[in-house]
């Protein structure tokens, strides 16, 4: 496996570590950290920063019975959250978003498939499957777009992106990612609004395909 060369930029990592990123983006960053020691170290360093703020931001007296309530609950039965381990190319947080099931791929034309993980007001996140040599349809976007490679690689005007690499694109970047020869490229992609594909699918059909 080649080394990761495209990491989470500082501000984005800080926003994730402090819990300030919308869920769609946070999923992509969590998936990258699952694959990348350097960004994991930075994430854990921010936790130390958070701990320092927690220690110094100022205490507020708690009600008298809170402590006894908590101590009484220590032995109470509880249902632990299920954990989802990595499966194949999909890191744990992606498996969690898939609820442990394989992606349900839907064709969007020219061999490209997608599996929407979540789509809401604050952003959407999906898996994309792009056959080798296939360009992702020319598209532009309104805001921040994060793309994490999980299998294969793609290239665009800004460089080549392999497994674990994260591409951060904003509204200034008009780019045409193309899957490299070899294995099909599987990516995890988050946007703050539905992607506007320029070609391939007429705009009228977009609500239908949700792309």
């Amino acid at each position, binding site marked *: 496996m080649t080394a990761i060369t495209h990491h989470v930029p500082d501000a984005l990592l800080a926003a994730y570590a402090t819990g300030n990123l919308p869920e769609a983006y946070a999923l992509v960053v969590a998936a990258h950290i699952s694959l990348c020691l350097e960004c994991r170290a930075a994430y854990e360093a921010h936790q*130390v920063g958070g701990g320092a703020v927690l220690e110094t931001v100022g205490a507020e007296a708690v009600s008298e019975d809170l402590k006894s309530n908590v101590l009484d609950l220590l032995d109470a039965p509880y249902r632990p959250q299920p954990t989802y381990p990595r499966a194949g190319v999909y890191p744990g947080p992606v498996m969690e978003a898939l609820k442990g099931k394989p992606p349900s791929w839907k064709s969007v034309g020219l061999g490209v498939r997608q599996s929407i993980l979540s789509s809401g007001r604050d952003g959407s996140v999906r898996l994309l499957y792009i056959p080798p040599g296939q360009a992702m349809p020319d598209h532009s976007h309104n805001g921040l777009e994060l793309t994490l490679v999980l299998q294969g690689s793609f290239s665009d005007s800004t460089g080549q992106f392999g497994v674990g690499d994260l591409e951060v694109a904003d509204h200034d970047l008009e780019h045409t990612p193309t899957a490299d020869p070899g294995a099909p490229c599987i990516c995890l992609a988050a946007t703050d609004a539905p992607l506007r594909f320029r070609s391939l699918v007429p705009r009228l059909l977009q609500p239908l395909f949700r792309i």
Partner: protein
Amino acid sequence: MTQPPPQVSAQTTWMLAVRDQRDRDAFAALFDHFAPRLKGFIMRSGTGSGQAEEIVQEVMLTVWRKAGQFDPARAQVSAWVYQIARNRQIDVIRKENRPLPEELGEAPEAEPDASQVLALEQEAAQLQQALARLKPDQREIIERAYLGELTHQEISTQTGLPLGTIKSRIRLGLERLRHELKELR
């Protein structure tokens, strides 16, 4: 029985006693230290006293239940508690599930390396001092970021914000992760 390493902070000692012996007195000591700080932290973002205490209760119960994951060579107690508190706040207040990275490998070592634990505590203390020395307006911004009040956009446009330098101040982290991963292979 695991002996706590010498000279580490009281919080780490309590946390290890909770993790390894399910020690209720040590948990009570952690509660006395963290519950008021957590409540203050949560109320700073505008949450009312009642709801803040509900979150404090959930956070402290998570500290007890997930104690097995605490690794003093990787995280300071306050850093670990901070993370749990932010996760809970996001669940409750934003009604979102916060995606978290995979846990790394196996359960933490039963016998933590005292020198590693101490080195991490020293780095954390230095970071805390560095934050305390900031000018009040910069300190305010740092606090607001860690309280969860700044958007990504706001964090990006804060030029000169020392947030970006925090990862280089905690230098041991990356080394330790590399070491840990090598052990797993």
